[in-house]
């Protein structure tokens, strides 16, 4: 049996080029059309966010022309000058959507950054040491998972007495670590039973070194997937919070803020809703497609 498996692997080795597991995953990802669409959308999103000042033709916060207190360009339909039209205050919706990508991505990345640090640290410690530490962390995870997210966000805003995008980072970051911690904990618990961990111990590596160098790199795949999907979730959550007035505040051009201000004009002038709404949908869908693709590509059981 074993000899046979070995032989099969030998044959595989010959047919496959010498590649690391990451190369293999990339090859699998490339074959997945939906994931590549997701990767394309995510890349465009990143480019738009980074180069927003170059791409956006107008200032997103203030209308270009105001004469006699009157907003001349208020509520214009799409035109060559304003491809997505202008809003009530005469601001170019296209420029606002472009800058909105910046806020959305920032929210996604920063909150997931917070979640990564908290989730990996707590999850790895709980999984590796087990016992009382594990029980304490698991309890904390349960508590956070049981907390309604909107309520938590309101509580954070209340603590700081006024809402704002920085509090959104904090609220979303604090609420999104538990799923990650749970995954990391489970991964660590199974990986620490692997023989190469015992081998590393027998070679004199310290606990810290084993966690950082041996355990976490081996649980990277599910972490990457969770974080990618988490970015999409955070973008949605920010839009939701801002729509409720609990998140980013006007005149900052967040997609959620744009939805909120546009809702009054939903019948007479729906462009104010369409474009930010579309932006949210495309961005979240793209990132989710990429996340799903990554899950399939990184899961060794899905190899064939």
């Amino acid at each position: 049996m074993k000899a046979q498996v070995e032989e099969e692997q030998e044959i595989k080795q010959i047919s496959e080029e010498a590649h690391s597991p990451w190369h293999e995953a990339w090859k699998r990802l490339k074959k997945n059309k939906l994931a590549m669409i997701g990767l394309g959308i995510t890349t465009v999103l990143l480019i738009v966010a980074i180069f927003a000042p170059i791409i956006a033709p107008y200032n997103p916060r203030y209308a270009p022309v105001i004469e006699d207190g009157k907003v001349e360009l208020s509520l214009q339909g799409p035109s060559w000058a304003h491809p997505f039209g202008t809003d009530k205050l005469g601001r170019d919706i296209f420029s606002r959507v472009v800058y909105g990508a910046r806020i959305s991505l920032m929210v996604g990345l920063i909150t997931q950054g917070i979640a990564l640090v908290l989730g990996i640290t707590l999850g790895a410690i709980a999984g590796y040491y087990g016992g009382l530490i594990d029980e304490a962390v698991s309890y904390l995870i349960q508590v956070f998972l049981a907390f309604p997210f909107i309520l938590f966000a309101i509580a954070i805003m209340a603590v700081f007495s006024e809402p704002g995008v920085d509090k959104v980072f904090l609220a979303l970051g604090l609420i999104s670590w538990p799923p990650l911690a749970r995954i990391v904990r489970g991964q660590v618990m199974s990986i620490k039973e692997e023989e190469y961990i015992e081998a590393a111990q027998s070679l004199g590596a310290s606990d810290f070194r084993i966690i950082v160098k041996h355990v976490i790199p081996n649980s990277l795949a599910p972490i990457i997937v969770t974080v990618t999907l988490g970015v999409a979730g955070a973008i949605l959550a920010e839009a939701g919070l801002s729509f409720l007035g609990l998140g980013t505040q006007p005149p900052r051009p967040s997609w959620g803020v744009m939805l909120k201000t546009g809702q009054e004009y939903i019948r007479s002038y729906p462009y104010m809703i369409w474009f930010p709404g579309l932006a949210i949908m495309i961005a979240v869908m793209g990132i989710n497609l990429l996340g799903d693709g990554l899950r399939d590509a990184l899961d060794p059981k899905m190899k064939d």
Partner: protein
Amino acid sequence: MSSTLLEVKDLQTYFFTDRGTVKAVDGVSFDVEKGETLGIVGESGSGKSVTAASIMQLVPSPPGDIVGGEINFKDENLLDLKMKRIRKIRGNEISMIFQEPMTSLNPVYTIGEQISEVLRLHQGLNKDEALEKSIDMLEKVGIPSPEERVHEHPHQLSGGMRQRVMIAMALACNPELLIADEPTTALDVTIQAQILELMDELRDEFNTSIILITHNLGVIAEVADKVAVMYGGRIVEQTDTVTLYKDPEHPYTAGLIKSIPKIEGSEGKLKPIKGTVPDPLNFPNGCKFANRCNYAEEKCWAEEPDLEEVKPDHYVRCWRWKELDLKNESEVK
């Protein structure tokens, strides 16, 4: 007599489970001289692997704990040392290789990175020096074109190759003691012989002492200088390899020898030892082997025998060793 490198004295490692205390290693003593190979033989559950883990202080705790005894390595009792010092010894002065070469290497690093890690950890080499030394080590353990192999990942190597890599890692810092826990069990027979030969060669080259743990007496016969036979957490017989095969005094040892498959000889039937190792919580009160022994008497069931010296350097734990003539039986089969 050459100098003693490792002296294990009355080692007791217990596992405290919900169902009761399992005495996985119960009063085991042995010495390992410099450059010598000690074989530890026994079935699954005999405590041989736990003995190895105890020396490395790798007994999972809880539920396991070393509750008594001494492990004297050179001038230090390993059981008294701080974790920091233990980590300095592990991989540097005492190394271990494991049973499963397929899973003992970290899949995300190249083999070069893994061998380098040990060298950088213990010898403070920089990246390039460590890589160079890794290539050297790979060459020493007989891996062809080491300059290319060093950049490969474990999944690209066969089982035998991986075990060679493990040996290279274990020997990278030139340890004085190598503990090999079933190093050949997961390998093909032809590869087994090569790995054993390699270990033998490397022992001669580096003057490393080896503790070889196996359930396979054939493996012991090939490389070990002396043997300890373990059963139920205790050593039941201990002597040099030649004596053990020629003149076993314990019925269990004789049984093990008889159960080795042989090609020559007229009788085609294997003679396994009857029964299986009992649940560790339910060993007989007296001699632990009593329920499987063909020669067990009333006394064997009542009281456990001590480890007696029957000849110089030949110890047996059996009430009836004087009366029994196991020698002929094991040869005749």
